[in-house]
């Protein structure tokens, strides 16, 4: 099904689902409120944003050379690096690294969702448990996460209480503290027995060969410290040139992602740590999976994304339909641009079928994006791509429009006809308008006629 139709159906369902809409509204509003306060409070916020945007532009521009630099640094410290061209290769690499090891704990990683890692691991007989509370919840429900930083954003406490009662056999409670404590207890054991910890990486620093991981719960710390093997999977566009670039990145990611000044934990990982009760082996898998193609055929500026999710929180569509409506692990404005390249089989795959129409060009996303990605312009650019492949009728209509704009007399004539079309015809021409809106009353006289009339008097 075409992506545009699919998201419209999701919107219809959402319009009837008061609970979902309320969950989404409350969660996004709270994140935005906290973000607003911090943006006002942080001195020189726009300077930091400028710095981040500059270093991310460099990350994208020098993607290949930074990758080489990072790999060299990491390997010299004993971290094994692997390059995966696509999802399948990444899955294969993870399985190779795991070998016979079966018990896996996972920290939240968008890239791992992108490549369908869990399914591949389970198919190979591995035991994989998501440890981020939100991801744990959606994993129990057998769903995909619905937001980049808040996977269970679409659920309320009652739904989670019912889930935990059913799946964990605990006494029914809607209290978030009780529910969290239950998850903590259930997962403790898994952490201690785990043989492999798989995480993403928020950033990798080329200059020093450092993996940076950001979190609040401590599950990523546990997953990257306790098991003897730690695997970090990340995209090739996530490499920052210098250590100092992490300053702006680590200031802006929490503010825009979760409305915090800083997350509870920031880890800088340099090497394995067998003597320091850390992992014996650390691996990084750098994933392409369409990123290079995006840089060439799409717009490379979209690769500057730091996965904060702020654009989702402000998007009028995301706020009403949630992540599932987009049919991709990357929803919202950034997802419109990246999905066609990164997600095979998702609704928006392929530029001709992208969700570029799922945008009112309100520009709220560009206003908040910490990496200064010109999202609305890129979405408009994606529309240009679609337009080039559009059916003839559409292209001809706009051609006519363009010509009319340059010929005042023809323009007036067209207006004259349009004003005289009976309402029933107009409604027939634009059914999508009339299902819910009155036809704008066209005035008896045009402005210029009234103006001329006024001048005569």
């Amino acid at each position, binding site marked *: 099904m075409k992506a545009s139709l699919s998201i419209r159906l999701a919107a219809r369902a959402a319009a009837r689902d008061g609970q979902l809409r309320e969950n989404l509204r409350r969660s996004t509003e709270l994140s935005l409120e906290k973000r607003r306060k911090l943006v006002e409070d942080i001195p020189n916020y726009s300077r930091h944003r400028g710095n981040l945007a500059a270093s991310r532009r460099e990350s994208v521009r020098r993607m290949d050379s930074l990758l080489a630099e990072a790999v060299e640094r990491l390997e010299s410290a004993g971290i094994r690096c692997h390059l995966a061209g696509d999802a399948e290769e990444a899955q294969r690499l993870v399985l190779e690294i795991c070998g016979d090891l079966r018990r896996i704990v996972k920290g939240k990683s968008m890239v791992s969702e992108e490549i369908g890692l869990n399914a591949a691991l389970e198919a190979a007989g591995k035991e994989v448990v998501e440890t981020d509370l939100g991801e744990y919840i959606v994993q129990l429900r057998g769903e995909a996460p619905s937001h980049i930083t808040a996977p269970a954003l679409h659920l309320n406490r009652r739904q989670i209480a019912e889930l935990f009662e059913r799946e964990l056999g605990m006494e029914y409670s809607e209290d978030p503290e009780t529910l969290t404590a239950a998850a903590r207890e259930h997962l403790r054991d898994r952490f201690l027995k785990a043989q492999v910890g798989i995480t993403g990486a928020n950033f990798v620093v080329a200059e020093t060969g450092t993996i940076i991981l950001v979190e609040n719960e401590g599950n990523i710390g546990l997953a990257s410290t306790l098991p003897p093997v730690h695997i970090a999977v990340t995209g090739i566009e996530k490499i920052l040139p210098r250590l100092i670039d992490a300053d702006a990145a680590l200031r802006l990611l929490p503010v825009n992602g979760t409305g915090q000044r800083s997350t*509870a934990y920031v880890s800088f990982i340099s090497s394995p740590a067998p003597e320091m009760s850390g992992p014996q082996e650390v691996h990084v898998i750098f994933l392409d999976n369409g990123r290079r193609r995006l840089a060439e055929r799409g717009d490379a500026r979209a690769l500057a994304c730091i996965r904060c999710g702020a654009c989702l929180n402000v998007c009028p569509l995301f706020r009403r339909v949630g992540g599932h409506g987009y049919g991709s692990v990357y929803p919202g404005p950034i997802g419109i641009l990246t999905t066609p390249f990164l997600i095979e089989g998702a609704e928006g795959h392929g530029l001709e079928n992208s969700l570029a129409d799922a945008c009112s060009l309100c520009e709220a996303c560009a206003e908040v994006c910490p990496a200064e990605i010109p999202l609305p312009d890129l979405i408009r650019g994606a529309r240009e791509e679609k337009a080039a492949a559009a059916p003839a009728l559409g292209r001809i209509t706009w051609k006519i429009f363009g010509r009319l704009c340059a010929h005042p007399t023809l323009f007036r004539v067209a207006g004259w006809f349009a004003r005289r079309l009976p309402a029933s015809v107009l409604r027939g021409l634009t059914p999508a308008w009339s299902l819910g809106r009155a036809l704008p009353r066209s005035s008896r006289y045009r402005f210029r006629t009234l103006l001329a009339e006024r001048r005569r008097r």
Partner: protein
Amino acid sequence: MTGEQAERLKRRFRENGTEWRQIDERVDLTRFIMMAKLEKPYAHVHPGETAFTFADGLIVETGAIILSGSRPGARRAAYLAETHFALISENAVFETLGDFLSLTRPPWHKLCGPALTLICGPSRTADIEKTLVMGAHGPRRLIVGTAPPELIKEMLDEGRA
């Protein structure tokens, strides 16, 4: 640490949920360590227990403590414990993360060790209806003690003796 920095740090700690004990006297230092109920630091921490670690510094802007991975067992302890006591020299203060990242001495690799962690308070989650809950997988409480470096050195020397 200046008085002004201490004021700001106090505010940040309060926002983060970090408890702070400013230690001036030897007796207070002893009490702090006794609270951690450990005979020696870096004991292998089992979950549900209290951990005591030294930490390498503080960042005023965010209220983060800096825990170098060069300290054996500290990283593990900091994640697994129920309550984490961290003792820091009151002079090891950085205004911002940028200041810390710009350090040239000791060189980054030496300071970082295999892994360096910035800790801004107890572990937490807001994944259920954006309601903040403390103590997700990591510690429920973070208690920071800052003391004059001479006092800490004195304690360590006696410990070795």
